[in-house]
């Protein structure tokens, strides 16, 4: 009888338990399960989106990396351009300066020659010419054929033209004639 009661108690307890579990926890569990499912679904969704973002980000990363390479290349190109220009400029300058300097040297040389002629050679030649004129009073014509002596003797009262063909005459003969214009009278 007692076992029968115990068994009945157990049954009742069991039923009560079952009732209890079924009535309350099931709801809670179902709720939990539903929430869990929702979270899981959201998570999958989020993961999809994040993966997509990552993909796009990877593409951006790649294109930015490429841009960086392009820029580096451009910079190097510009650097080469600059160097080329500088070298060009240096060569050009060197050449021009050298040519200017050479021309300047030439000019200096010519200037010295001009100076020497002006200060020494010409005055000296003029002096000699003056002495000749002082003595002979003869002025020669510049453009004459080779063996013709043409000029003028400027005597005190008279100007006498001179026209001598030296081909057929001896040197002393011509000299004697010309000295004839210079008087021995004091």
């Amino acid at each position: 009888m007692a076992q029968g009661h115990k068994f009945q108690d157990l049954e009742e307890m069991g039923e009560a338990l079952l009732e209890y579990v079924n009535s309350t926890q099931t709801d809670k569990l179902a709720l939990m399960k539903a929430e869990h499912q929702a979270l899981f679904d959201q998570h999958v969704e989020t993961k999809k989106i994040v993966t997509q973002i990552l993909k796009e980000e990877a593409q951006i990363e790649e294109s930015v990396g490429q841009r960086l390479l392009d820029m580096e290349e451009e910079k190097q190109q510009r650097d080469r351009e600059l160097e080329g220009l500088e070298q060009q400029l240096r060569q050009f300058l060197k050449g021009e300066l050298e040519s200017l300097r050479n021309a300047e040297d030439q000019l200096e040389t010519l200037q010295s020659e001009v100076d020497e002629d002006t200060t020494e050679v010409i005055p000296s030649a003029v002096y000699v010419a003056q002495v000749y004129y002082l003595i002979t009073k003869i002025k020669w014509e510049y453009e004459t054929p080779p063996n013709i002596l043409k000029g003028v003797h400027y005597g005190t009262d008279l100007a006498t033209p001179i026209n001598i063909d030296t081909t057929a005459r001896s040197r002393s003969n011509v000299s004697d004639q010309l000295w004839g214009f210079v008087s021995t009278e004091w």
Partner: protein
Amino acid sequence: MCLKKCKDDEMLFETIQTFKIDLEQKNSSLKEKQHDISEVISEIQQKEMQKDEIIQKIEKLKEEQAKRKELIVSQNKANKDRLRNLQKARLVFQDHLGMEIRTILGKTQLVKGEKLQFVFRNINPSDQESAYVVTLGIKEDGAYQIVSSDPVLECLPALESRLQETNNLPAFLANVRKEFISQARS
């Protein structure tokens, strides 16, 4: 399974962070490179401007030099022309008058006409080249002084005093020549 999902998520987030940091770095590198490129470009522009400036300066220098050259060349030409004519006349006197004039440097600085040498040729018809020389000095007051003659002329002192009396250089020379001739042609 939840734990595994968590780990996966953590990795995703880490990757996102890494991308973010990397992109920031790349961006700042890009900015830097862009800046460098701008600097190089501006340097190139500056150099181009400098180059133009220098070219202009050089052109100007060349122009100035060309002007100076023109001046010097024309001065030289004028000098040479004058010298040519002076030299021509001198040669005519030397060859046909048969008298060469030489200025001799004294021991001190050459003063025009300090000593004059007259070299006669065409004196001896059988030896036209042989030289007959008379050397004079000119004092500060312009007075003449006989230094020597070659060959020696006995009448030279007499001629000297007449010269000093009259200052008549032409007559003196004509008489000296007459004496040389009478010596040579007798």
